[in-house]
C-alpha cells in the first residue's frame, strides 16, 4: 500500500507573544480586542513600552491622553514606545 498526501489543511489559533494574558488597562484578553474595537489582531494590535509592559494600542493611547504624566499604568515608569 502506498499513501500519498496531496494536501493537508491544518487548524491553528494565533496568539500574541506577551508576558501576560490580559491587557492591564481594559482587562480583556490580548487575543481579544479592546472595548472600542470589534476585530482582534491587525485591527487592534499590541504595543510594548520600554518597561516591557504591553497593552492594546488603543488602550494605552487613551490612557496617556487622560493622564497629565506619560507613565506606564503598571509600573509608573515614564512611558516610551518600544518597537521591538
Amino acid at each position: 500500500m502506498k499513501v500519498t498526501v496531496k494536501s493537508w489543511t491544518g487548524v491553528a489559533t494565533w496568539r500574541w507573544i506577551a508576558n501576560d494574558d490580559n491587557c492591564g488597562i481594559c482587562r480583556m484578553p490580548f487575543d481579544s480586542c479592546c472595548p472600542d474595537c470589534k476585530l482582534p489582531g491587525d485591527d487592534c494590535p499590541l504595543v510594548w513600552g520600554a518597561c516591557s509592559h504591553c497593552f492594546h494600542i488603543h488602550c494605552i493611547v487613551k490612557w496617556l491622553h487622560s493622564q497629565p504624566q506619560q507613565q506606564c499604568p503598571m509600573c509608573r515608569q515614564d512611558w516610551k514606545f518600544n518597537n521591538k
Partner: protein
Amino acid sequence: MASKREELEIYWNKINYAYPILNDTLFTDCSDAEYEDIQQIIVGLGVQIKIRDLILVHTEKYFRQHVASSFWSKFIKTDEEVKGFQLFKSAVNDLYEAMASFSPMITRLTILNNSCCDNKPIYGERDVMSGIKQLLRATLLSQLPLDFQVIINHFYKVSFNVFDNAEYENSDMGEDVMCSGCWNEYSDCNCSYIVKVFHDTNRKLVELTLLERLTGQVLTNFIQQRIELHIQKLCTGTFDVSHISFLENWLDTTVMSWLTRIYCAGSSKPHRVDKDIQNAVSKFKQKLSYSLYHIYTKLRIDQLFNIIIVYPDSQPAVDDIKLCLDKTDLRATLCKKLQNALETRLLHPGVNTPDILTAYISAIRALRHLDPSGVILETVTKPVRNYLRNREDTVRSVVSSLTEEGAGSELAEELAKFAAETDDELEKEEDWDNWMPDPKDADPKVNGNDRKANDIISMLVNVYGSKELFVNEYRTLLADRLLAQSVINTEKEIRYLELLKLRFGESQLHFCEVMLKDVSDSKRINALIQQDKNFESLNNKFSSNAMILSAQFWPPFKDESLELPDEIKQHFEAYTKSYEALKGNRTLNWKPHLGNVNIEIEIGEKKLDLTVSPFNATLIMHFQTKPEWSLEELHQIMKVPLIILRRKITYWQSLGIISEKSTDNYVLVEGSDGNKSSCSTNQVQEMICEDEESESVMASAHDQREGELQVFWSYIVGMLTNLDSLPLERIHQMLKMFASQAPGTECSLQELRQFLDTKVRTHQLVLQAGMYKLPKT
C-alpha cells in the same frame, strides 16, 4: 201514530239513500235533484246537526276500517327500490281515488252543514272539505306503521337519481349501455315514466295535504344523505380546489329545484304566489344549507392535518373552511380534532425533528390564514411547542434550516422575507376601522397584538426559550461547518449572517462575524506564506494550508491529542515560522486533530482518493511504514487514548483496508484481499462525507446517548440473527420501522453508527467491509 212512524222510516231510508256512509258504504244513485228533496226533509225535521254529526262518526269509522288500513298495507319493508317506488305510487293513487269517491258525499254534506246554524268547526276546519281531509290525515297518522319510511325513501331515491343524473347527462353517456338515471338499458330507459309518476304522486299528496307530514322527515334525511355522499365523492384527496361555491350551486339547482318540484307538483318554481309553499321551501333550504356547510366542514376538519402539510397548495381548502367556520359552530371541534391529529401523527419518537418543524411551520402558515386572530394556532399547536422543547436537537434543527438551502429552505426564505419586511413595519399604523375583537376562545392572558405579530421565526425561537441560546447554537454550527468544509462558501455564510443580524441584533452575532473574517484572512495569509522561499521545498511534496482562528471568538474546542507524522510536523513548524515573520509578535498554536487531509491510497491495483481527518491520515500513514500494529504501539506513537483509537480505527475496518487480526492487533489487508473489499470508490466517498459530518469538533456534544440507545440492541440482535449481515443504512431503516415506537427513543444514522461502533469495540458485533454481523460463537 203508526203512519207517523212509517213516515219517519221512509225519511230515514231516504237519508240513508243520500248518505250510504251511514251503512258503511259509498255506493248510491242519488242525484243532485233527489238530494234537494232529502235536504228539505232533514231541515223540515230540524235534525241537520244530528245527521251531520252521525255522518262524520261513520266517515271516521270508514276511514279507520277501510281507507287507512288498505293504505298502510302497502308500506312493507322491502330492499327493492323499484318495488318500493311502485308500492308508494299505488298507495297514494288508491288513497286519492278513495278520497275522490267521497266527493259526491262531501258536496251533499257541505249543503247539509250550511243549513246547520251552530257554526261548529269540522275537525278544526271551517269547511267540510278541509275537515274531511284533516280527518283522513289524523286517521292515517294514528295508524302509522313502524317502517313506513322505507318505501317513501325508495320512491324519492329512485326519482332523485333521475334528476341528479340529468345534471351530468352530457358527460359520458356514450360509454355506458345503462342509463345511470334509472339503471335500465338505454333502449329501455324508464326515466320519463319515473318523472311522470313522481310529479303525479306529489301532486296527489299536495292535494291530500299529506305531503309534508308523510314525507318531510324522509326527505330531510334523504337529502342530507345525498349531500353527504355528494360531498364525499367530490372532496376526496384534493385540497387545491375550492368546492364551496360549486356545492352551493348544486344545492340551489339540483336539490332545491327537485324539492320545489315536489312541493309545486312538477313546476320548478312556485308559480302561484302560494305563501305556504314558499315558506315551506325556504325553510327547507335553510335547513339544508346548514347541513351542507356542516357536513362539508366536518369532512375538511377530518382532513385538516393533510391539508396543512401541503399548505399553501391547499389554500383553496383552507379558504373553504374559513368561510364555513362562520356559518357553523365547529370551531371547537376543529381545534380538538386537529390537536389530536398533530399529536398522533407528529409527536412521537418515530418522526425526526426537521419533519416536525416543517409540519409546524406549515401549520403556522395555514392556521394564520384560517384564523388571523392567531387563537386557533395558539391553542392547537401548544402540544407541538411543548414537545419540541423537550427534543434536544430542536435548536440545532431550526438553526441549520435557517441557514441551509434546499430541503429545509422554508425558514431561510422566511428569514429573507423578514429582512425585506422590517422597513415597512414602522409605518404600519393601527387600523381602527377594521378592528375586530378577539374571538371568544382567546386566552385573555395573551395580548392579541403579540399573537398576531409573531412571525414564524420568533415562534420557533420562542419554542425553546431565549434568543441567546439560538445564537450560541448557530455559532457552534457555523464553527463545525467552517472547519468541516475544505472549500468554504464564505459569501453565502456572510449573506446569512447579515440576515441573522437583522433578526437577532448585531451584538449577538459579532462573534460569528470574526469567525468568518478568520476564514477569509486565512486564505490571504496562506497565499502569502506559500510565496515564502523557506516554504517552497516543502511545498513541492504536497501543499499545506492552515485555518488560523481567533480563539477568543470561536466556541471552545474539544481537547484531543494527536501526534502527527514527522513530515507533517515539519510542515507546520515551517508554517509557524513564516507566520511569525509575517505577523510580528504573534505565533500559532496548532490543533493537530482538526482539519482535513486529501490522500491517495494505492492498494493492489486500486487507487482511492479520500478526504479524511488528520487522525485517519496519520493512522494509515503509519500502516504504510509497518503493516501490523498493536493498539498499544499505536497509542505510543500517536499519543491518542486507547479507547478513542479503538473507536476510530473502525473507519479503516469498514473500508476493508485494515482488519483486526487478533484482539487489539491490527493488520493491513493487502493485495487480493483488498481488491475483494466490496466498496467502490463512490461508496467510499459517501461514507467519508458522513464521517466528517457525524462528529462535532466542538465541546458541546452530548455523549450520554449510548445508554438510551440500548433499547434498540435486542432488535438489532434479532435482525442479524435472521439476516446474517446488514449495512448501517438497512439497520437504521428497519429500526425506524419496527422499533421506533419504543418510548423516549429516536436515533439518527450517526448516532446509530456510533452505537454500533461501541458494540464492535466490545466484540458484540463484527464489522466487515461495511456490513455488521454477529460474531460467531
